[in-house]
């Protein structure tokens, strides 16, 4: 329009058509005046949008030419909505609603959804779910996933280490049987159960006969082999519910829950026979091995009394006396404490 008017004035001047020159010049002047007004309005609009975006406080009034404009109103509402949402997000509010639709609204909602999902994933990791991985948020995701992986490794190492120490604390390394410490732990529970229920728990104390002679004759490695083989035969002679421990040196103890002395004696004799029935071979050398066994019984009274180590000690002592008697009267036999 502007260029056309200029061209018309130029052409009219060439023709010396002053009437047309005057008419077109007037139009040009009006055009400039109109567009100057539009330019002012555009400037005011841009300033208002800039203020709505950037001012710390959202502007409360806008130029009067814009107030009645519906599109402008919608735009200002959208900007206000984005401001509240983004400000909330910057303070860590992840549930702030956003009514805005479209590309910008969609992108912001995607970010919000991802952050909310990340919060949920973190809660899951806290509960021990180390399979969670972040597959969005670029470089952060890589670092986060590395961290989860390391947490998982650390947790596994700790768990393995706890298991290792638990094993060391409860298992005899040579024979693989439970150790003396663990025996007392279990015995306290079993004796308490027997006491409450007026039931019997029996102990079998076993000592390998002439073990020193085995060590002296065949060497300590052979002695260790005999200890391992006796452990296996002992274990194979007992029930799954029985607890078998290496008590020290060549001495073993078995705790038999829900078993009276009469029954325990039969089991003890089965152990004795299993140990003596075949020689133990070490480097193809047969080592004839026998064991002496003492049996004792703890019988509960139905009281609420919680047995202590001293109560267990007394029952062990009874078994020890019986074992001593078995040794004194010829070895390779079972004696029950009366």
């Amino acid at each position: 329009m502007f260029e056309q008017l200029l061209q018309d004035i130029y052409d009219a001047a060439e023709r010396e058509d002053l009437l047309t020159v005057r008419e077109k010049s007037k139009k040009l002047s009006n055009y400039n005046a109109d567009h100057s007004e539009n330019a002012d309005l555009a400037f005011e609009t841009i300033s208002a949008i800039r203020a709505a975006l950037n001012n710390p406080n959202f502007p409360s009034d806008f130029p009067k030419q814009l107030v009645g404009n519906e599109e402008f109103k919608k735009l200002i509402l959208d900007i206000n909505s984005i401001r509240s949402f983004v400000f909330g997000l910057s303070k860590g509010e992840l549930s702030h609603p956003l009514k805005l639709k479209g590309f910008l609204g969609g992108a912001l909602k995607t970010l919000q959804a991802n952050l909310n999902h990340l919060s949920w994933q973190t809660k899951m990791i806290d509960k021990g779910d180390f399979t969670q991985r972040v597959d969005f948020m670029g470089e952060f995701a890589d670092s986060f996933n590395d961290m989860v992986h390391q947490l998982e490794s650390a947790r596994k190492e700790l768990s393995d280490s706890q298991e290792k120490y638990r094993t060391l604390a409860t298992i005899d390394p040579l024979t693989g049987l439970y150790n003396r410490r663990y025996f007392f732990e279990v015995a306290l529970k079993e004796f308490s159960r027997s006491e409450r229920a007026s039931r019997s728990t029996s102990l079998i104390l076993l000592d390998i006969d002439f073990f020193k002679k085995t060590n002296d004759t065949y060497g300590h490695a052979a002695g260790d082999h005999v200890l391992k083989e006796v452990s296996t035969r002992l274990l194979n002679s007992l029930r799954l519910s029985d607890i078998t421990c290496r008590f020290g040196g060549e001495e073993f103890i078995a705790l038999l829950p829900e078993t009276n002395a009469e029954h325990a004696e039969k089991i003890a004799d089965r152990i004795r026979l299993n140990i003596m029935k075949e020689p133990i071979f070490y480097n193809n050398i047969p080592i004839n091995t026998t064991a002496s066994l003492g049996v004792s019984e703890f019988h509960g009274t139905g009281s609420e009394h919680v047995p202590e180590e001293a109560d267990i000690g007394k029952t062990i002592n009874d078994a020890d006396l019986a074992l001593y008697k078995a040794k004194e009267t010829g070895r390779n036999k079972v004696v029950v404490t009366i």
Partner: protein
Amino acid sequence: MSKRKYVFSWELLGDIALGRPNLGPTTRVEVYRLMQFVFRDVLEQKFGTEKTDEIFYEAGKLAGFHFYKQMFGQIIDFEEFVRSLQKTLKFLGIGILRVEKADLAEGSFVLTVSEDLDCSGLPELDYEVCIYDEGFVAALMESFTGKKFKVKEVDCWCTGDRTCRFTAEMIKD
């Protein structure tokens, strides 16, 4: 209704390996959408918009029940169910499921599905289109918890939200 002809069962999906030795088990998303959107068109012409939406929700539910039974019937732990669901939906190209909120005790959930099979990439409309998905999600939640759920799509790609967001609320007695 007299004896029915089209009762759904998983077996109706057929032995795809046998039937499509060369083309395999996948097809283009456009083909899936073509069928879904023409169904929607014809159903709306015959029964109206409201009834069409109801049919889509119910169809989604029926699919969800069978899908759950087929894929997740043995899972009893909720977190494991979510993990398995995420993996399965991604593997099958249905969508990328993310959990925004999961309160099992209250029966209140907010889930998002990105790159949704039904709607991602569709032109912008002024309504949510994932009604089938609503029914599908409701059936998954109901199957796992044994409680009734109402699922609503609150944001959708089609309304310019880029990701589909669903609320799932347990219907309390």
